[in-house]
């Protein structure tokens, strides 16, 4: 297998009126062709910033990006913005959380769908139309011809997300970034969209990065999972390995806090108390220490490095779960 996207020591800093804010703090990630990886973490953990930085989509005078991003053999972090832009569509594409704001409200679905086909692939009007009907069928929209004439506001959230997917895959990208593609949707529609994405990924042989806050969403739809916390990857493993053998107390807490349909009715849910540390003023030790029920003195003073266990399981914790090291539970 070869690598399609490789992040090496990726860092993103914003300068704000409250000082330097380090949103992504040295992320290493190597994504293999044809796999699907889930990036999981709570709101504010840096998932969106990391994926945008990887795609070179972060702009603004207050942003600094460090580190190396290699996509499909090309070093994106050293290319001009123009060259990076040329990778969009055919190389990589993105789907966003809010399908309403990502579509232009005053243009018909057809013209938005055909735009990149004509511009990027140089299709004629007729070819683009035929291809867009094909795409709409691919994302399972009934009566695709009818759909071309509609405006985004006439569609439900689920339909809009299907349109976004159709636009994203229109130029056969190798890598698809999906940033919380189902967070704004109902569970029933979420199930359909996830199934669709997984199916399309296999059929079109795409690599997929699925960003979400819900461990339930990654369970059935990814090969690998990376858990992010406070701008770092704190645990990473093949999906089945991760769920079978969680090493990081944070992952476990995240897992336990999911409202689970299999639990007893009326039972009290376990929660993660507290909140993410202030990103402008990170504590010296483990970022989770103040909220971790296994934390010991060392956790507050020394920052844990990413350790490698067997089966490609990475974790960032002084006292990983399932270890025989004795610890006091506070």
């Amino acid at each position, binding site marked *: 297998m070869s690598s399609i996207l490789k992040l090496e020591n990726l860092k993103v800093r914003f300068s704000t009126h409250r000082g330097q804010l380090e949103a992504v703090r040295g992320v290493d990630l190597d994504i293999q062709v044809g796999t699907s990886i889930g990036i999981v973490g709570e709101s504010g953990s840096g998932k969106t910033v990391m994926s945008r930085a990887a795609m070179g989509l972060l702009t603004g005078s207050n942003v600094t990006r460090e580190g190396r991003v290699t996509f499909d053999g090309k070093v994106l972090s050293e290319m001009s913005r123009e060259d990076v832009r040329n990778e969009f569509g055919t190389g990589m594409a993105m789907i966003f959380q809010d399908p309403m704001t990502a579509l232009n409200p005053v243009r018909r679905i057809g013209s938005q769908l055909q735009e990149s086909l004509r511009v990027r692939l140089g299709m004629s009007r007729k070819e683009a139309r035929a291809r867009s009907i094909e795409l709409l069928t691919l994302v399972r929209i009934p009566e695709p011809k009818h759909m071309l004439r509609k405006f985004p506001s006439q569609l439900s959230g689920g339909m809009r997300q299907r349109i976004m997917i159709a636009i994203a895959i229109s130029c056969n990208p190798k890598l698809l970034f999906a940033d919380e593609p189902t967070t704004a949707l109902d569970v029933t529609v979420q199930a359909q969209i996830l199934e669709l994405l997984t199916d399309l990924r296999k059929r079109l042989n795409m690599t997929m990065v699925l960003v979400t806050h*819900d461990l339930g969403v990654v369970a059935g739809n990814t090969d690998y999972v990376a858990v992010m916390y406070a701008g770092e990857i704190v645990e990473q493993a093949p999906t089945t390995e991760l769920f079978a053998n969680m090493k990081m107390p944070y992952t476990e807490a995240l897992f336990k806090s999911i409202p689970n349909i299999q639990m007893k009715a009326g039972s009290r849910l376990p929660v993660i108390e507290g909140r993410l540390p202030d990103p402008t003023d990170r504590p010296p030790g483990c970022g989770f220490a103040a909220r971790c029920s296994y934390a010991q003195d060392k956790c507050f003073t020394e920052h844990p490095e990413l350790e490698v266990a067997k089966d490609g399981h990475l974790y960032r914790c002084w006292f990983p779960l399932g270890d025989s090291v004795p610890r006091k539970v506070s």
Partner: protein
Amino acid sequence: MTNHAHLRKDSDVLLRVEDLVVEFKVPGNKVVNAVSSVSFDVKEGETLAVVGESGCGKTTLGKALLQIQKPKSGNVRFEGNELTSLSKNDLRSARTSIQMIFQDPISSLDPRMTVRQIVEEPLWIWSKGDENERLEKVKTLLNNVGLDPELVLDRKSYEFSGGQCQRISIARSLALEPKMLICDEPVSALDVSIQAQILNLLNDMKDRYGLTLIFISHDLSVVKAISTRIMVMYLGKVCEIGTTESIYAKPAHHYTAALISSVPVPDPTHKVERTPITGEPPSPVDPPSGCRFRTRCPAATELCATEEPMLREVSDGQFVACHYPRA
């Protein structure tokens, strides 16, 4: 044609809704059947979960209970008062004993007001206490919802995360010490890890303030922890209603079963025997004849198209509107 099999004795319930109909006129002389003849009741201290897909009329139902959205017909009886026929002024005071919290935590709070002003507002409207008493009350409320008054009182809502905004909303809704709280998807816009916190908080507040809850959601996994009864809605109609245990143990309606199997399970080895439910609900402007779910139902027959199924009891306290309920 009544659909009242599931209603309990009038004297036992806090809220009783009968044959409630809410319609919206839309351009082209058409009518959206948002809520079509819905009946249910809620006993004091119960938590009724109202579950269904987006657009099935849950929010409209909630607003119609409060008469923020005027129903076309039907009755809403709360503590013996018929809310649909109250005068504007009586309604204003009746509303104080039913409060609502909303899905979007950010847009539920006025961005130009401080947390103190927001939580104090209901007390101000009803001239409860003098300034000092009100401030004390605000502090107590904020404490109870898990916010430190000293840290939050003078900040504005947009400085807070979604979960914190939802806590502020809950504090505000409790200020007038209502009997009933209608929660419209209070956790749908939040991270899973925060959802649990808010659900626990609502349960605590329910005990502390002796509340009766109506909890609206599209996600059956979320309501399991909080509800005592569940009412499943589809396209403006009630499909199934029953105790929480019975609904999860043996969903009788095909739609309920589909909702249950749509919930993502955080276990990669779990193989979904997904009840096939595809597509989206049809338009409420022109709902299907007979059973409204028939266009997506795996068990639909001829009969489902011609005759509307009525709610009937399938097991103790579980009622379903289906010609061929699941065994």
